[in-house]
């Protein structure tokens, strides 16, 4: 394996024994993360993001295929992997009764960092995370956003080359989420980290170098965000109709309309040609006496691509 691939899986498989049958949570997933890359794993709820991450780390038994981190096999070389990676579990909890500083020292000790080095490393990370004034606050009494930042700091104390994050910003408000990602970005710049992150937030997926879309355990897309967006045919336009349902019903049947999505009070339409169809839509709306505003072509974002690709896959599965 070339040296600059930090995470690699080949046809990875994981089963779970359900009550009556065996569920395949990870179904032949092949992916690759390179040094310094941010890889985002996205997918509908229950698609297998967490499970994939855990198998890669060796926290769950692998049932088929291969998986390795920095060349170390997930099943055989578990401790080598753990020494070189950072991880934030989805239901992570840091010991709530220990202070911020105690938590940092705890993880530093677990990773065998000599005491002399600890002081400066910890101070640096705390500064980055904006937690310097809170060193003696018990972890349990930090706000949600700060807990996540502390978790990040603890997971990076040993300067790992790879960090795996399982929905790290779940339930956190947008401001704190941004701060978290800024922090992550800064740390990546400093340390050249590779980041593997599962996220339900499409705006976070946009910031990844590569995105993997997982659906029912299968990786149905793996590319740069731009590449994934290109997988959806057509051009995207948006507008805000005064009468939402009426407008939606109207455009859904129209020729050249490849797909109809909603975004808040706006309609997003994938159309085959911009000029012609836009005019047709405007005419149809006027004919039905539906006012609209802000009609313009937009660049598809991960959210639109996600919805489209998942829907297509659902339809394809049902068709079978």
């Amino acid at each position, binding site marked *: 394996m070339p040296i600059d691939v930090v995470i690699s899986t080949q046809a990875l498989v994981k089963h779970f024994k359900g009550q009556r049958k065996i569920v395949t949570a990870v179904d032949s997933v092949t992916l690759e993360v390179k040094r310094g890359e941010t890889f985002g794993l996205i997918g509908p709820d229950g698609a297998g993001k967490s499970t994939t991450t855990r198998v890669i780390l*060796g926290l*769950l038994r692998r049932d088929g295929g291969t998986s390795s981190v920095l060349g170390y096999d997930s099943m055989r070389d*578990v401790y080598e992997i753990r*020494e070189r990676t950072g*991880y934030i*579990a989805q239901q*992570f*909890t840091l010991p709530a009764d220990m202070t911020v500083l105690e938590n940092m020292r705890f993880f530093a000790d677990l990773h065998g960092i000599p005491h002399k080095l600890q002081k400066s490393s910890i101070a640096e990370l705390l500064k980055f995370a904006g937690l310097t004034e809170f060193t003696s606050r018990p972890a349990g009494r930090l706000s949600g956003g700060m807990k996540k930042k502390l978790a990040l700091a603890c997971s990076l104390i040993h300067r790992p080359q790879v960090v795996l994050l399982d929905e790290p910003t779940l339930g956190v408000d947008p401001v704190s989420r941004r701060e978290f990602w800024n922090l992550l970005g800064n740390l990546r710049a400093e340390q050249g980290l590779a980041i593997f992150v599962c996220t339900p937030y499409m705006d976070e997926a946009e910031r990844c170098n590569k995105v993997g879309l997982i659906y029912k355990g299968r990786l149905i897309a793996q590319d740069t965000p731009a590449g994934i967006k290109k997988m959806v045919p057509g051009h995207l336009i948006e507008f805000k109709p005064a009468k939402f349902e009426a407008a939606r019903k109207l455009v859904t049947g129209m020729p050249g309309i490849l797909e109809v999505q909603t975004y808040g009070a706006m309609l997003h339409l994938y159309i085959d040609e911009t000029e012609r169809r836009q005019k047709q839509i405007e005419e149809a709306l006027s004919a039905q006496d539906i006012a609209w505003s802000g009609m313009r072509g937009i660049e598809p974002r991960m959210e639109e691509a996600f919805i489209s690709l998942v829907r297509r896959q659902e339809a394809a599965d049902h068709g079978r």
Partner: protein
Amino acid sequence: MAKSLQRLRALIYKETVQILRDRRTLLLFFALPLVELFLFAYAVSLTVTHLPTAVVDQSLDTRSRNFIHAVVNSGNFDVTLMLQNEQQVRQAIDAGTVKVGVIIPPNFERQVLLGKGDVLILLDGSDSFSVQSGYTAALSITQKYSLDLTTEKVQSGGASTVLNALTGQLPITTNTRVLYNPDITDLIFILPGLIALIMQIIVVTNSAMAIVRERETGTLEQLLATPARPAEMVIAKLIPGMLVAILDMTMILAIGVFWFQVPFQGNIMLLAGLSILFIISGMGLGLVISAVAKTQRQAQQLTSVIQLLAMLLTGFLYPRTTMPLWTQIIGNLIPMTYFVRVIRGIMTKGVGMTFLWKDSLTLFAYAALALAIAAVISKKRLD
């Protein structure tokens, strides 16, 4: 009101369903009372019969033989040893081989004829029930035998002997000495066993709960992903409990000895060393529970089962000698049984390794087993 009842019913229904789904707890709810019932019915007995007894017959005449027969036939005493003198009897009691010693002095026949027969009964005072039962039994046997003798005499003799018999003393008296616990103070008997029980409770509960709790709250996953080895994580969980147990033991011991004046005859370092073995074996028990229990509630209940068995079957309160074989076997599986003997031996009897080596070896084996279990149980994965 009707609405309130409806809500109440709904809440009850929910709680019931949750319990019914929890198969393990359910099992315990029914198994536990059954176990208790059978234990109390068959195993636990407050009076002791078949006390292992050593007999010294320094007369070796008909009278002494008859007396010994009376002792044997009573069913209260199992004569297991025939010894030469009082010293040997004391040693046997020290070693725990017998609980009672019956010493018949020389010239028993002549003494009896003179109406001055005297039998020395030695009782193991570190075992309260044996003492009570042994004492009562010995007394009644002696009285009965004496009465028989008197009747015999009256039948053979004349009216004057009847008068003598009725007004005088019985020809045989017993001189009872309770070793180690002359006033038969309950605390002296109970305290060592209590220490053992408390230590077990603390150690087993702590080891079981600490592991199950971490599994439940989810911090386990976060720690597993670090270089921490499972063995390290397990040991770290157990050590604080161990320290607490040691501190508790020291505290109770100190109070018992200095405030309650419970005697401490033996070697404290020996006790310390064997206590450590006991603690380690307790942790093993806790680990086994943590492997079986899926929730903290289940762990709690399994721990209670162990405590109950410990109270009843280890000889802490209720004597083991009268228990049917199957309960004795169960008792033999519990490390505390051996430790109770050890701590009683050291505290009350002041004995050392010469008598305790067997129990010590067993404790050692249990401790080793506990460490082996710890090694097996520690997993480096979630599944």
